[in-house]
């Protein structure tokens, strides 16, 4: 029986790799930003998969708190990146 921890951690690694590859390959800013966020989601998934302790036990709350912080930081970083992209577009249009 494969453990759920390993299964979801491997999925997280897969998502991280997909995101990382696309971040390096893409040239458009928005595609890169999306890929970077996918990449971050993969890291979150690895954390939470490792925190999981099976059906009966309560999961490890420390990675949960870290990832919760991470989600909020990721969205504010995305907002900043989008604002920078907007500014760049404005400057290019002029």
């Amino acid at each position, binding site marked *: 029986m494969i453990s759920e921890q390993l299964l979801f951690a491997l999925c997280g690694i897969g998502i991280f790799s997909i995101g990382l590859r696309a971040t390096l390959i893409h040239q458009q800013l928005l595609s890169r930003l999306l890929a970077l966020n996918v990449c971050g989601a993969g890291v979150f998934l690895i954390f939470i998969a490792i925190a999981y302790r099976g059906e009966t036990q309560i999961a490890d709350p420390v990675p949960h708190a870290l990832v919760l912080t991470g989600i909020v930081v990721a969205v504010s970083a*995305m907002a900043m990146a989008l604002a920078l992209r907007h500014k760049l577009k404005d400057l290019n249009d002029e």
Partner: protein
Amino acid sequence: MTEWLWLFLDLTLILLLLTLAWLTCATHNNQKGVTYFIAFGLLLALAWARLKAPDLALAEAVIGAGISGALLLAAIKHDDDAQSVNKLPSIKLWMVNLLTVALATLMGWGVWHGLELSDGNRLADQVLAQVPESGVTNPVTAVLLNFRAYDTLLELAVVLTAVLAVLTLNPMRKTYVPAEPILQTMLSWLVPLLVVTSGYLLWVGAHAPGGAFQAGALLASALILLQLAQPTAYQAINLNWMRFLLIVGIAVFVSVGLLMMFLNTAFLGYSSSWSGILILVIETAATFSIASALAIAYMGGRPDGWETFETSTSSGHQGGKHS
């Protein structure tokens, strides 16, 4: 039997997550990419629920799928679809592929070995043992607001910095035309409900999944809805108070921390009899800060009259006269 059923469901979820991640990254069409990304966020919320992280599932559903989706859709609205795509030279492409595969193998090996190790003296056990003394019974809230309160304080600082950058870079996006009556009517039900739910999440965070981040994000989504539909009552509101809400989270957090330093021993070292109330106070302030930060992020920049302090105070007076 049930084990196989769970395995089947897990594999389905994992396959869907990987497919959506791939689709999000493979497309060159911005609109499609954003749509896939929103769907990916929703599935991720499902994965958090599966892995017994309901706090995260709530946050992901509101922030990962809802608010980042709104931010991205607003950002790509005026993009032209046709984008020139230069292909990378194949040697670079292969180098990237090689690097990715190597890194993935290394991470897989690390995770495998990490899981093989015996549990030993786990941090989780120490945390769970200390939770009764933290003032709250939800272990995630205890970690966020008590054991690792520094992290959360710095996180609020990061959010504030990002929003300050947004405010500095651009003026506010053009406001939308008022939506049609049916949406306005729905909003007159939905917005109060969102405010109540956000207050509920904030309160319930002490002993069940919920807390400042989820509550703040929900409040922000109410503000974003108002921003989108522009009901008449919302247009009359002066937005100047939002900049005070932006800093109230950090201000209260630091003040409580300093107060504890004078009364007790250390910065943010709560005395255990008061910690429940102090955590609630900090969380309430943080909720308002996160809500206004995300709402301002959605506006895409500063509203009129926020340029400098002088102009803002004068426009504040004008706003007062108008309303």
